[in-house]
């Protein structure tokens, strides 16, 4: 195995074979081949403990939250709020009430754009995003700017896919209300210097939102240390069920904001004439929340915390190094995005085959990768490609799977040449 050449596997603190046994899906075969799952930036699979906890909760402990005065409801409420505490601890939030649950990052950003943006962004104001955002961190701001007569400004990137920080500094001015950038680009894997972005944004008097959809599963997050105003995340990208995610926000900001979705559970009092709103986070969680999914998220956080985000990050970096070297040796393959600080995501294009053909062909070998624009069309436009093939790795991937990826890509090139 190439491992013996690199020594990479022996350096890892993780027992990968043991980790893989925690994920039932990984023992599947696809088209008669062992599944090689490399679409983790899109969504991740669930460990047995999450699957089991969700089943157990639904079977034995499920109840409505924050409503009933009977045992089942009180117990479910307790567990629901316990999960909120786990999220708060996981991202380093000082107070669990600063965590608002949403369906995921998309809804989280929309919540901030709606509740914060519609209140504090006015005509002539400016919002800064970057050229390598997911559509979920572009469209809500475009809509807000259009509605308010505000201006959307964009931090450019260099040819390696890194934000050009000097240009960012030039964009900041007294009109800047908000800066919204991702921590890690889902299309290129670039890890952005968010601490510096936040500090400079604050110096200009702006609030800063970090889209953490790609960073929360892969690196230790400390919102207190980052000093971000909002940090958004998705459960299904961190080994939890889909349909749950959330946003950390500073309490004084939450308190200054009006509701996004209105209805039950977000009120203090309702008469037919007037409604007063509940305190955060309830103010932003109208309706019955996805209770079971929240419980599953809590268990997923327990799981990755036990494995250790530092261990996860270190191992995924060695996977990235290995894959970058393997793919770099293939003639006719070009990696898009070569930032110095990069997460375990590799986007590439082949001279002879379109990304959709590549992903369909790799699928025949049991390899799941994403071919497309990754909901980041402005990134594709910047790099002059209609789409890329993206292999995104998680800590349950192994070196042998990357060997299989490289071999399968070579087969595609041979067939299409």
């Amino acid at each position, binding site marked *: 195995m190439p491992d013996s050449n690199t020594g990479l596997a022996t350096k890892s603190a993780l027992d990968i074979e043991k980790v893989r046994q925690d994920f039932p899906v990984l023992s599947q075969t696809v088209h008669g081949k062992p599944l090689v799952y490399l679409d983790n930036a899109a969504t991740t699979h669930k460990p047995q403990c999450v699957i089991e906890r969700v089943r157990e909760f639904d079977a034995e402990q499920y109840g409505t939250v924050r409503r009933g005065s009977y045992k089942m409801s009180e117990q479910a409420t307790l567990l629901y709020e316990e999960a909120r505490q786990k999220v708060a601890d996981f991202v380093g939030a000082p107070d669990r009430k600063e965590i608002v649950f949403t369906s995921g990052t998309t809804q989280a950003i929309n919540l901030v754009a709606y509740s914060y943006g519609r209140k504090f962004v006015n005509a002539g104001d400016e919002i800064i995003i970057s050229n390598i955002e997911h559509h979920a961190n572009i469209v809500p701001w475009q809509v807000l700017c259009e509605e308010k007569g505000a201006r959307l400004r964009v931090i450019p990137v260099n040819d390696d896919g890194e934000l050009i920080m000097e240009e960012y500094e030039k964009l900041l001015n007294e009109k800047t209300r908000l800066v919204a950038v991702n921590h890690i680009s889902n299309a290129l894997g670039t890890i952005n210097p968010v601490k510096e972005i936040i500090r400079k944004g604050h110096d200009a008097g702006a609030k800063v939102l970090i889209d953490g959809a790609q960073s929360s599963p892969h690196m230790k997050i400390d919102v207190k240390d980052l000093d971000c105003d909002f940090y958004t995340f998705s459960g299904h990208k961190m080994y939890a069920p889909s349909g749950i995610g959330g946003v950390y926000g500073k309490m004084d900001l939450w308190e200054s904001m009006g509701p996004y979705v209105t209805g039950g559970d977000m009120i203090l009092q309702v008469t037919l004439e007037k409604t007063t709103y509940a305190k955060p986070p309830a103010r932003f969680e109208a309706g019955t929340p996805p209770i079971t999914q929240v419980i599953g998220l809590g268990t997923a956080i327990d799981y990755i915390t036990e494995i250790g985000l530092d261990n996860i990050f270190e191992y995924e970096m060695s996977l990235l190094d290995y894959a970058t070297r393997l793919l770099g040796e293939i003639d006719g393959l070009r990696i898009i995005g070569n930032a110095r600080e990069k997460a375990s995501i590799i986007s590439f294009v082949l001279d002879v*085959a*379109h*990304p*959709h*053909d590549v992903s*369909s*062909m790799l699928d*025949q070998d049991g390899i799941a990768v994403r*071919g*497309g*624009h990754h909901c980041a*069309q402005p990134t*594709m436009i910047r790099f002059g490609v*209609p*789409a890329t093939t993206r292999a995104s790795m998680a800590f349950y991937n192994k070196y042998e799977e990357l060997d299989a990826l490289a071999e399968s890509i070579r*087969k595609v090139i*041979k*067939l*299409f040449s």
Partner: protein
Amino acid sequence: MSYDNELYQQVILDHNRNPKNFREIKNATHHCHGINPLCGDDMTVYMEVDSEQGVIRDISFVGTGCAISKASSSMMTAYLKGRSLEESRVIFDEFHKMVLGELDPEKQEHHLGKLKLFRGIRDYPSRTKCASLAWHTMIGALDKKTEEISTE
């Protein structure tokens, strides 16, 4: 090669490498721009239609896309050139039904000729739009659609 699926047959790979009618038609009587927003495929179909005779004198395409969409466009243009508008609409309808799995060219009557090799697409629902983009765009051109045609 171990890829024994119907998706990437030699004919499709050949058309992908050397597409037919991959050019613009100057002074086209009909043209239309089509996109597949799901994957970013983007093409324009040009036609020179003899409206008195109701015949497609020339048809071509330009754009970017995967092998399936390129081969489908290439084979469509080669197949429709010289055909009547009426026939072309019937063939569009049959092709569309075939890739959706609603028409089996092995069991039902059709006018698809060698286009029936796209039958295998029905087993790959995520790729049917790759095969049908050119066809939808061609119909858009005939209908003088001024807006972009989308597969969504």
